[in-house]
């Protein structure tokens, strides 16, 4: 462009000043964002340590830190409790929170719907359906625990496929209907439908497992073993890292599909990659921890609210941190504190965060539409 070079000399002093100003604002903004991420990381570490230290047998924080950093522990029992009983639960919760939150953040942009998340739109139910079909179809020997690595992967794959199926149906409907609230109701119905099919399958094949299934569909990170965590950790870590590359195309999609296309973004490819990553994240987590609700919905909204931006380059990592904190805090409230003998399902706790966020989004969205 020929004119842009000469234009610089023509700028008035005011214009130069107004160009200089954003530098200062930019620096303070960078400081705010960095501070926020620092705080979130500290908060997460704090929750991790507290969750490991507390329980039916309390372990001093110093001892926990010594064991975690690989130093000599005061007692071998403590070491076993920390590494074999509590750490798998904490790692599973951390991964589940991060995976569901990143999945939810992507779905909200993909569906152009602030209320989208793997649980609400029935993706988790689809995953359970997929897993149930494989487990019951192969003889119903047990609910994941007790399965060999191959069948474990088979069940995980089926869960991912079930999640992907519901995602495709929901996205197809969302692109045709457009109204976020209608899509929400459709998703809830899809979830009920998948859940009903699972109940029927289980009831007619093995009524004794119905109780186990009930806890499974309400979410728990407590029964995951190190052995199972390998599959979860590897698949989630890979997809979480890959979703960094989706941040910029997702930003373009905020403008709408036609604008994104005009910016050179391959919209179909981004849709496919994002759907695939959401299916893997929510499918894998659901296969091992059950359907954990509302984290994927609440965490991205909290991240955007705290960061005061929708930029996915910041929202995706912040959502992951917040999601992890939510699940771990929920696990603490649900019984990880050792104050009670029994424990609650995770969903009974996460609903306390999720339901108000849904209500807030619905009501503020309506208020904004009326103001225009």
């Amino acid at each position, binding site marked *: 462009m020929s004119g842009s070079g000469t*234009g610089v000399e023509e*700028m008035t002093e005011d*214009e130069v000043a107004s*160009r200089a100003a954003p530098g200062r604002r930019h620096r303070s903004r960078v400081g705010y964002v960095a501070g926020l991420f620092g705080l979130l990381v500290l908060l997460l570490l704090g929750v991790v340590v507290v969750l490991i230290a507390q329980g039916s047998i309390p372990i001093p924080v110093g001892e926990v830190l010594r064991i975690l950093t690989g130093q000599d522990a005061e007692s071998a029992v403590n070491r076993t409790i920390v590494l074999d009983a509590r750490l798998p639960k904490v790692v599973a919760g951390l991964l589940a929170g991060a995976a569901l939150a990143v999945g939810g953040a992507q779905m909200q942009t993909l569906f152009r719907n602030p209320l989208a998340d793997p649980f609400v739109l029935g993706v988790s139910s689809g995953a359970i359906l997929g897993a149930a079909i494989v487990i019951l179809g192969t003889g119903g020997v047990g609910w994941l625990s007790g399965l060999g690595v191959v069948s474990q992967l088979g069940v995980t794959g089926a869960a991912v496929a079930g999640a992907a199926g519901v995602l495709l149906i929901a996205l197809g409907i969302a692109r045709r209907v457009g109204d976020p609230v209608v899509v929400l109701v459709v998703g809830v119905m899809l979830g009920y439908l998948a859940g009903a099919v699972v109940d029927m399958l289980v009831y007619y094949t093995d009524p004794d497992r119905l109780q186990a299934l009930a806890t499974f569909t309400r979410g728990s990170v407590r029964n995951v073993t190190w052995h199972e965590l390998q599959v979860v950790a590897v698949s989630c870590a890979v997809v979480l890292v890959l979703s960094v590359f989706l941040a910029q195309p997702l930003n373009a999609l*905020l403008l*709408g599909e036609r604008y994104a*296309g005009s910016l050179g*973004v391959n919209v179909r490819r981004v849709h496919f990659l994002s759907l695939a990553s959401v299916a893997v994240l929510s499918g894998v987590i659901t296969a091992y921890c059950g359907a954990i609700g509302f984290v994927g919905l609440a965490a991205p909204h909290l991240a955007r609210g705290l960061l005061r931006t*929708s930029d996915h380059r910041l929202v995706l990592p912040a959502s992951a941190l917040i999601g992890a904190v939510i699940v771990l805090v929920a696990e603490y409230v649900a019984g990880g504190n050792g104050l009670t003998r029994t424990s609650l399902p995770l969903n009974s706790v996460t609903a306390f965060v999720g339901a108000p966020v849904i209500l807030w989004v619905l009501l503020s969205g309506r208020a904004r539409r009326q103001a225009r």
Partner: protein
Amino acid sequence: MTVEPRPALQAVAVSAGYRRRRRHPAVTVLRDVHLAARPGELITLIGPNGAGKSTLLRTLVGAQPPLAGHVLLDGRDLAALSPRQRARRLAVTLTEPVDVGQMTVDAVVALGRIPYRSWIGRENARDRAAVDRALLDAGVADLRDRPLTDLSDGERQRVMVARALAQEPAVLVLDEPTAFLDVARRIEFAAMLTRLSTTTGTAIVLSTHDLAFALRRADQVWLVGGDGTVTAGAPEDLACGDAITRAFTGENMSFDDAAATIVVADDEVPGATVRVVGEGRPRQWAEHAARRAGWTPTPDAADHVLTVEPGTPCRWRVDGTHVPDATRAHGIGFDSLVTHLRGCATPLREDARTG
């Protein structure tokens, strides 16, 4: 002789249309279209509804392939460019509303740099400079830290232009950018586009329904005729010839040259002429009032004389040249003038309708 600069955007023997379904025969809307947008030109695209404006725009920006012919962007075939290459030369603003959630103006404009960035999206100094320049050029530098959701329609429209400019395009295509703006915002926006086209050398193509605006501002008008043709030319050439009249006027309509717009002619009453005597604006608006009442103002001697004197509101007097005459009256304000003139013309109007 000056050397003609290479067109920024060119349509060579383009046929445009659409397919209802895959493998169905295509419906051709426009045939054999030849167009050229030179750098720095402001071009308005006009045409009646359903004539194929949108089809032409979609074809020119590569959103749909031409059925025949080629669209050239900076001399290269649009179909041969990758989406990223195309996005570095061609930017668009659309009519669809944008809801980006929580984003500042600066962040929205920075999205225009996506075609230049690596896959991870890091912003370098060149990106920053382009965003700053785009914010200044579109006149939204003061708004840069405001959330997009806080802005008025006019401000949002400018931000979307800034976002397009951040792509540093050779061609900027705007789909009905002034549709939701009030008159003052519309004029501001038009002035900004004129300035942009000359200072940045970008070729700007915009579609509009505002005929007066299209003719007043454009270096070139592309007229989609409704008969499958597109006529390109200077606004005066199209207006002076009968191309615009043919494309737009229905029954009982005509092209009003002074107002550069289409007017409805059904209230014109043959024979009821009036000579308006007065000065400046009062005289101009007295003629307007007479026309509104269904009379034809004329500078020549007429059966009636309307005299108008300045004031707020203006004083008026109607005299007939024949004596005695029922049309003789006077009053203050154009409302009473129109009422009076309509009253006089009623018998004539009924004659005109029944006959």
